[in-house]
Protein backbone atom coordinates (compact mmCIF):
# COMPACT_ATOMS: atom_id res chain seq x y z
CA UNK A 1 0.00 0.00 0.00
CA UNK A 2 1.36 3.46 -0.90
CA UNK A 3 1.87 6.14 1.72
CA UNK A 4 -1.17 8.27 0.85
CA UNK A 5 -3.95 5.74 1.68
CA UNK A 6 -2.13 4.89 4.90
CA UNK A 7 -2.07 8.56 5.82
CA UNK A 8 -5.82 8.85 5.09
CA UNK A 9 -6.54 5.77 7.23
CA UNK A 10 -4.48 7.21 10.06
CA UNK A 11 -6.46 10.47 9.85
CA UNK A 12 -9.75 8.53 9.92
CA UNK A 13 -8.56 6.58 12.97
CA UNK A 14 -7.59 9.77 14.79
CA UNK A 15 -10.94 11.37 14.01
CA UNK A 16 -12.79 8.28 15.21
CA UNK A 17 -10.80 8.35 18.43
CA UNK A 18 -11.70 12.00 18.98
CA UNK A 19 -15.35 11.25 18.29
CA UNK A 20 -15.21 8.37 20.73
CA UNK A 21 -13.77 10.60 23.44
CA UNK A 22 -16.46 13.22 22.84
CA UNK A 23 -19.13 10.53 23.10
CA UNK A 24 -17.64 9.31 26.37
CA UNK A 25 -17.75 12.85 27.78
CA UNK A 26 -21.37 13.27 26.66
CA UNK A 27 -22.32 9.98 28.31
CA UNK A 28 -20.66 11.10 31.54
CA UNK A 29 -22.40 14.48 31.34
CA UNK A 30 -25.76 12.74 31.14
CA UNK A 31 -24.88 10.26 33.89
CA UNK A 32 -24.04 12.99 36.39
CA UNK A 33 -26.75 15.42 35.32
CA UNK A 34 -24.09 18.05 34.51
CA UNK A 35 -23.65 18.67 38.26
CA UNK A 36 -19.91 18.32 37.99
CA UNK A 37 -19.55 20.84 35.24
CA UNK A 38 -19.41 24.14 37.01
CA UNK A 39 -15.78 25.19 36.68
CA UNK A 40 -14.52 28.02 38.82
CA UNK A 41 -12.89 30.71 36.75
CA UNK A 42 -9.21 29.82 36.39
CA UNK A 43 -9.41 27.37 39.32
CA UNK A 44 -6.17 25.48 39.95
CA UNK A 45 -6.11 21.78 40.77
CA UNK A 46 -5.20 22.31 44.42
CA UNK A 47 -6.14 20.20 47.44
CA UNK A 48 -9.31 22.19 48.19
CA UNK A 49 -10.48 21.58 44.62
CA UNK A 50 -9.67 17.88 45.03
CA UNK A 51 -11.70 17.81 48.25
CA UNK A 52 -14.72 19.40 46.59
CA UNK A 53 -14.75 16.97 43.64
CA UNK A 54 -17.10 13.98 43.41
CA UNK A 55 -15.34 10.74 44.38
CA UNK A 56 -15.04 9.35 40.85
CA UNK A 57 -13.29 12.46 39.52
CA UNK A 58 -11.11 12.89 42.62
CA UNK A 59 -9.61 9.46 42.12
CA UNK A 60 -8.63 10.30 38.55
CA UNK A 61 -7.35 13.78 39.43
CA UNK A 62 -5.30 12.42 42.35
CA UNK A 63 -3.67 9.90 40.06
CA UNK A 64 -2.63 12.65 37.64
CA UNK A 65 -1.31 14.70 40.58
CA UNK A 66 0.84 11.73 41.64
CA UNK A 67 2.03 10.78 38.13
CA UNK A 68 2.47 14.32 36.87
CA UNK A 69 1.63 13.31 33.31
CA UNK A 70 -0.15 10.18 32.13
CA UNK A 71 -2.34 8.60 29.46
CA UNK A 72 -5.81 7.23 30.16
CA UNK A 73 -4.30 3.74 29.96
CA UNK A 74 -1.68 4.57 32.62
CA UNK A 75 -4.31 6.14 34.91
CA UNK A 76 -6.58 3.09 34.49
CA UNK A 77 -3.73 0.82 35.59
CA UNK A 78 -3.46 2.79 38.86
CA UNK A 79 -7.20 3.08 39.55
CA UNK A 80 -8.20 -0.39 38.35
CA UNK A 81 -11.01 1.12 36.30
CA UNK A 82 -11.60 0.69 32.56
CA UNK A 83 -9.49 2.79 30.18
CA UNK A 84 -12.62 4.19 28.49
CA UNK A 85 -13.99 5.30 31.87
CA UNK A 86 -10.73 7.03 32.78
CA UNK A 87 -10.61 8.62 29.36
CA UNK A 88 -14.07 10.09 29.97
CA UNK A 89 -13.15 11.38 33.44
CA UNK A 90 -9.87 12.86 32.19
CA UNK A 91 -11.65 14.65 29.38
CA UNK A 92 -14.21 15.94 31.89
CA UNK A 93 -11.36 17.37 33.96
CA UNK A 94 -9.93 18.98 30.81
CA UNK A 95 -13.30 20.59 30.03
CA UNK A 96 -13.52 21.81 33.63
CA UNK A 97 -10.16 23.51 33.16
CA UNK A 98 -8.26 21.50 35.79
CA UNK A 99 -6.15 19.43 33.38
CA UNK A 100 -4.39 20.02 30.09
CA UNK A 101 -4.26 17.50 27.25
CA UNK A 102 -1.46 17.07 24.77
CA UNK A 103 -1.30 14.68 21.82
CA UNK A 104 1.96 12.97 20.92
CA UNK A 105 1.52 10.68 17.97
CA UNK A 106 -1.23 8.24 18.82
CA UNK A 107 -1.16 8.93 22.55
CA UNK A 108 -2.98 11.65 24.49
CA UNK A 109 -1.23 12.80 27.66
CA UNK A 110 -3.05 14.52 30.52
CA UNK A 111 -1.37 16.76 33.11
CA UNK A 112 -2.01 19.54 35.62
CA UNK A 113 -0.37 22.65 34.29
CA UNK A 114 1.34 23.87 37.44
CA UNK A 115 3.81 26.21 35.77
CA UNK A 116 1.72 28.36 33.47
CA UNK A 117 -0.90 29.28 36.05
CA UNK A 118 -0.18 32.42 38.05
Amino acid at each position, binding site marked *: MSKKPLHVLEKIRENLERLNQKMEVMIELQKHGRQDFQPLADA*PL*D*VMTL*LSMPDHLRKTAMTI*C*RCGRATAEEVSQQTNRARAVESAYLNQLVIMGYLKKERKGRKAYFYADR*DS*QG
Partner: protein
Amino acid sequence: MPTETVKGERKMSKIIAVHSYKGGTGKTLLAVNLAVTFAKHGKKVCLFDLDFRAPSLFSILKVENPGCWLNDYLNGNCAIDKVLVDLSSRIEGNGKFFAAIANPSTEAIREMSAKDRKWEMRALGKLLSLRSTLLNDKEFDYLVFDTSPGLQYSSINAIVTADFVVVATTGDRSDVDGTRRMLRELYKLFEKKTGLVINKVLDPTSKSKKDEMDARVKNIYQVPMLGLVPCFCEILRAEGNLIFTQDKPNHPFTNILDEMARKIDRDEVN
Protein backbone atom coordinates in the same frame (compact mmCIF):
# COMPACT_ATOMS: atom_id res chain seq x y z
CA MET B 1 11.81 3.07 46.64
CA PRO B 2 12.48 -0.50 47.75
CA THR B 3 15.13 -1.15 50.39
CA GLU B 4 16.78 -4.44 51.31
CA THR B 5 15.58 -6.10 54.52
CA VAL B 6 17.40 -8.67 56.63
CA LYS B 7 15.63 -11.54 54.87
CA GLY B 8 16.47 -10.06 51.48
CA GLU B 9 12.86 -9.05 50.82
CA ARG B 10 12.15 -5.76 49.14
CA LYS B 11 10.39 -3.19 51.29
CA MET B 12 8.81 0.07 50.13
CA SER B 13 9.98 3.37 51.55
CA LYS B 14 7.32 5.68 52.86
CA ILE B 15 6.21 9.25 53.34
CA ILE B 16 4.55 9.69 56.74
CA ALA B 17 2.54 12.76 57.74
CA VAL B 18 1.93 13.43 61.43
CA HIS B 19 -1.28 15.41 61.75
CA SER B 20 -4.04 16.33 64.22
CA TYR B 21 -7.28 18.27 64.38
CA LYS B 22 -6.20 20.57 67.20
CA GLY B 23 -2.91 22.09 68.26
CA GLY B 24 -1.15 20.85 71.40
CA THR B 25 -1.83 17.17 70.76
CA GLY B 26 1.89 16.32 70.58
CA LYS B 27 2.33 16.16 66.80
CA THR B 28 5.81 17.62 66.77
CA LEU B 29 6.90 15.50 69.72
CA LEU B 30 5.69 12.38 67.88
CA ALA B 31 7.13 13.43 64.50
CA VAL B 32 10.60 14.22 65.88
CA ASN B 33 10.81 11.10 68.04
CA LEU B 34 9.40 8.83 65.33
CA ALA B 35 11.95 10.14 62.81
CA VAL B 36 14.81 9.72 65.31
CA THR B 37 13.59 6.20 66.14
CA PHE B 38 13.62 5.21 62.45
CA ALA B 39 17.18 6.57 62.20
CA LYS B 40 18.19 4.63 65.33
CA HIS B 41 16.81 1.52 63.62
CA GLY B 42 19.35 2.12 60.84
CA LYS B 43 17.05 3.89 58.36
CA LYS B 44 17.82 6.93 56.23
CA VAL B 45 15.26 9.51 57.37
CA CYS B 46 14.38 13.11 56.72
CA LEU B 47 12.12 15.11 59.02
CA PHE B 48 10.23 18.04 57.43
CA ASP B 49 8.80 21.04 59.26
CA LEU B 50 5.61 21.73 57.30
CA ASP B 51 4.09 23.81 60.10
CA PHE B 52 4.89 27.13 58.44
CA ARG B 53 2.60 29.11 60.76
CA ALA B 54 4.42 27.97 63.90
CA PRO B 55 7.80 26.45 62.90
CA SER B 56 9.52 24.62 65.73
CA LEU B 57 12.15 22.22 64.37
CA PHE B 58 14.81 24.97 64.21
CA SER B 59 14.49 25.24 67.99
CA ILE B 60 14.02 21.56 68.89
CA LEU B 61 16.91 20.42 66.66
CA LYS B 62 18.95 23.55 67.42
CA VAL B 63 19.53 24.43 63.77
CA GLU B 64 19.88 28.19 63.62
CA ASN B 65 20.86 28.86 60.04
CA PRO B 66 20.54 26.12 57.41
CA GLY B 67 21.82 26.93 53.91
CA CYS B 68 18.26 27.16 52.60
CA TRP B 69 14.89 26.95 54.33
CA LEU B 70 12.14 24.56 53.29
CA ASN B 71 10.22 27.73 52.34
CA ASP B 72 12.88 28.44 49.67
CA TYR B 73 12.38 24.99 48.12
CA LEU B 74 8.60 25.42 47.96
CA ASN B 75 9.06 28.92 46.53
CA GLY B 76 11.17 27.39 43.74
CA ASN B 77 14.32 29.24 44.82
CA CYS B 78 16.54 26.21 45.52
CA ALA B 79 16.83 22.44 45.09
CA ILE B 80 15.79 20.14 47.96
CA ASP B 81 19.37 18.95 48.62
CA LYS B 82 20.33 22.53 49.58
CA VAL B 83 17.63 22.45 52.28
CA LEU B 84 18.54 19.17 53.98
CA VAL B 85 20.64 19.49 57.12
CA ASP B 86 22.61 16.35 57.99
CA LEU B 87 22.22 15.65 61.72
CA SER B 88 23.30 12.00 61.56
CA SER B 89 26.21 12.59 63.93
CA ARG B 90 23.71 13.28 66.73
CA ILE B 91 22.08 9.86 66.35
CA GLU B 92 23.57 6.65 67.69
CA GLY B 93 23.95 3.78 65.22
CA ASN B 94 24.36 3.61 61.46
CA GLY B 95 21.15 5.37 60.48
CA LYS B 96 21.04 8.72 58.70
CA PHE B 97 19.03 11.62 60.03
CA PHE B 98 18.34 14.77 58.02
CA ALA B 99 16.00 17.69 58.61
CA ALA B 100 14.31 20.26 56.38
CA ILE B 101 13.72 23.35 58.49
CA ALA B 102 10.95 25.96 58.10
CA ASN B 103 11.90 29.62 58.41
CA PRO B 104 10.69 30.86 61.82
CA SER B 105 11.00 34.60 61.10
CA THR B 106 7.79 36.63 61.43
CA GLU B 107 8.20 37.89 57.87
CA ALA B 108 8.45 34.33 56.52
CA ILE B 109 5.40 33.21 58.52
CA ARG B 110 3.42 36.19 57.23
CA GLU B 111 4.56 35.50 53.68
CA MET B 112 3.65 31.79 53.86
CA SER B 113 0.22 32.61 55.33
CA ALA B 114 -0.61 34.85 52.37
CA LYS B 115 0.05 32.33 49.58
CA ASP B 116 -2.67 31.89 46.97
CA ARG B 117 -4.22 28.69 45.61
CA LYS B 118 -1.94 28.54 42.60
CA TRP B 119 1.11 28.66 44.84
CA GLU B 120 -0.39 25.90 47.00
CA MET B 121 -0.96 23.80 43.87
CA ARG B 122 2.69 24.21 42.89
CA ALA B 123 3.73 23.44 46.50
CA LEU B 124 1.77 20.17 46.24
CA GLY B 125 3.70 19.37 43.07
CA LYS B 126 7.00 20.10 44.87
CA LEU B 127 6.05 17.81 47.76
CA LEU B 128 4.93 15.04 45.41
CA SER B 129 8.24 15.28 43.54
CA LEU B 130 10.11 14.40 46.78
CA ARG B 131 9.11 10.79 46.13
CA SER B 132 11.31 10.82 43.07
CA THR B 133 14.15 13.07 44.28
CA LEU B 134 14.55 11.73 47.82
CA LEU B 135 12.99 8.26 47.99
CA ASN B 136 14.08 7.06 44.54
CA ASP B 137 17.26 9.00 43.74
CA LYS B 138 18.74 9.64 47.21
CA GLU B 139 17.46 6.35 48.65
CA PHE B 140 15.76 7.70 51.74
CA ASP B 141 13.69 5.12 53.63
CA TYR B 142 11.33 7.53 55.36
CA LEU B 143 10.24 11.14 54.97
CA VAL B 144 8.38 12.32 58.07
CA PHE B 145 6.19 15.45 57.73
CA ASP B 146 5.38 17.46 60.84
CA THR B 147 2.26 19.42 59.85
CA SER B 148 0.02 22.28 60.98
CA PRO B 149 -3.12 21.23 62.87
CA GLY B 150 -6.55 21.23 61.23
CA LEU B 151 -7.48 21.78 57.63
CA GLN B 152 -4.75 24.13 56.45
CA TYR B 153 -3.41 24.08 52.92
CA SER B 154 0.09 23.02 53.98
CA SER B 155 -1.21 20.13 56.09
CA ILE B 156 -3.63 18.86 53.43
CA ASN B 157 -0.82 19.06 50.86
CA ALA B 158 1.25 16.91 53.24
CA ILE B 159 -1.60 14.42 53.71
CA VAL B 160 -2.19 14.09 49.97
CA THR B 161 1.55 13.44 49.48
CA ALA B 162 1.85 10.91 52.32
CA ASP B 163 1.49 7.13 52.16
CA PHE B 164 0.54 6.90 55.82
CA VAL B 165 -0.94 9.44 58.24
CA VAL B 166 -0.24 9.32 61.96
CA VAL B 167 -3.20 11.07 63.60
CA ALA B 168 -2.44 12.46 67.05
CA THR B 169 -5.38 13.04 69.35
CA THR B 170 -6.14 13.52 73.05
CA GLY B 171 -9.13 12.93 75.32
CA ASP B 172 -10.31 16.53 74.92
CA ARG B 173 -13.99 16.50 73.86
CA SER B 174 -13.63 19.00 71.01
CA ASP B 175 -10.54 17.15 69.78
CA VAL B 176 -12.41 13.82 69.78
CA ASP B 177 -15.28 15.27 67.73
CA GLY B 178 -12.99 17.15 65.34
CA THR B 179 -10.71 14.15 64.81
CA ARG B 180 -13.66 11.89 64.09
CA ARG B 181 -14.96 14.35 61.50
CA MET B 182 -11.52 14.77 59.95
CA LEU B 183 -11.05 11.01 59.65
CA ARG B 184 -14.35 10.73 57.83
CA GLU B 185 -14.23 13.88 55.72
CA LEU B 186 -10.55 14.25 54.91
CA TYR B 187 -8.45 11.09 55.14
CA LYS B 188 -11.21 8.83 53.85
CA LEU B 189 -11.83 11.04 50.80
CA PHE B 190 -8.14 10.87 49.94
CA GLU B 191 -8.10 7.11 50.67
CA LYS B 192 -5.26 7.51 53.17
CA LYS B 193 -4.03 4.75 55.40
CA THR B 194 -4.09 6.06 58.97
CA GLY B 195 -2.90 5.07 62.42
CA LEU B 196 -4.28 6.74 65.53
CA VAL B 197 -2.13 7.80 68.47
CA ILE B 198 -4.00 8.76 71.61
CA ASN B 199 -1.64 11.03 73.53
CA LYS B 200 -1.54 12.32 77.10
CA VAL B 201 -3.62 9.41 78.42
CA LEU B 202 -4.06 9.49 82.21
CA ASP B 203 -3.65 6.16 83.99
CA PRO B 204 -3.24 4.10 80.79
CA THR B 205 -2.32 0.88 82.64
CA SER B 206 -5.70 0.50 84.38
CA LYS B 207 -8.07 -1.97 82.74
CA SER B 208 -11.00 0.45 82.73
CA LYS B 209 -8.92 3.08 80.92
CA LYS B 210 -7.68 0.58 78.36
CA ASP B 211 -11.24 -0.62 77.74
CA GLU B 212 -12.42 2.97 77.39
CA MET B 213 -9.71 3.72 74.80
CA ASP B 214 -10.36 0.50 72.88
CA ALA B 215 -14.09 1.28 72.76
CA ARG B 216 -13.40 4.83 71.63
CA VAL B 217 -11.14 3.69 68.80
CA LYS B 218 -13.60 1.00 67.73
CA ASN B 219 -16.83 3.00 67.99
CA ILE B 220 -15.87 6.60 67.40
CA TYR B 221 -12.77 6.72 65.21
CA GLN B 222 -13.10 3.38 63.39
CA VAL B 223 -9.44 3.37 62.31
CA PRO B 224 -6.50 1.23 63.48
CA MET B 225 -4.72 2.22 66.70
CA LEU B 226 -0.99 2.87 66.34
CA GLY B 227 -0.28 3.58 69.99
CA LEU B 228 -1.37 4.85 73.37
CA VAL B 229 0.96 7.42 74.96
CA PRO B 230 0.60 8.15 78.68
CA CYS B 231 0.90 11.66 80.03
CA PHE B 232 4.57 11.75 81.10
CA CYS B 233 5.53 14.48 83.56
CA GLU B 234 9.18 14.06 82.48
CA ILE B 235 8.29 15.23 78.98
CA LEU B 236 6.67 18.36 80.36
CA ARG B 237 9.62 18.95 82.67
CA ALA B 238 12.10 18.65 79.79
CA GLU B 239 10.44 21.75 78.23
CA GLY B 240 11.39 20.66 74.71
CA ASN B 241 15.10 20.49 75.52
CA LEU B 242 15.36 16.71 75.08
CA ILE B 243 14.66 14.32 72.23
CA PHE B 244 13.51 11.47 74.43
CA THR B 245 14.12 8.60 72.02
CA GLN B 246 17.73 9.75 71.67
CA ASP B 247 18.49 11.22 75.11
CA LYS B 248 16.48 8.78 77.26
CA PRO B 249 16.90 5.36 75.60
CA ASN B 250 15.35 3.49 78.55
CA HIS B 251 12.36 5.74 79.11
CA PRO B 252 8.89 4.14 78.56
CA PHE B 253 8.12 6.82 75.96
CA THR B 254 11.12 5.61 73.93
CA ASN B 255 9.81 2.03 74.12
CA ILE B 256 6.37 3.12 72.89
CA LEU B 257 7.93 4.99 69.93
CA ASP B 258 10.11 1.94 69.17
CA GLU B 259 6.98 -0.17 68.94
CA MET B 260 5.18 2.39 66.74
CA ALA B 261 8.14 2.59 64.33
CA ARG B 262 8.29 -1.21 64.09
CA LYS B 263 4.56 -1.44 63.40
CA ILE B 264 4.84 1.12 60.58
CA ASP B 265 7.98 -0.49 59.21
CA ARG B 266 6.40 -3.95 59.12
CA ASP B 267 3.15 -2.55 57.78
CA GLU B 268 1.31 -3.95 60.79
CA VAL B 269 -1.13 -1.07 61.36
CA ASN B 270 -4.37 -2.81 60.50
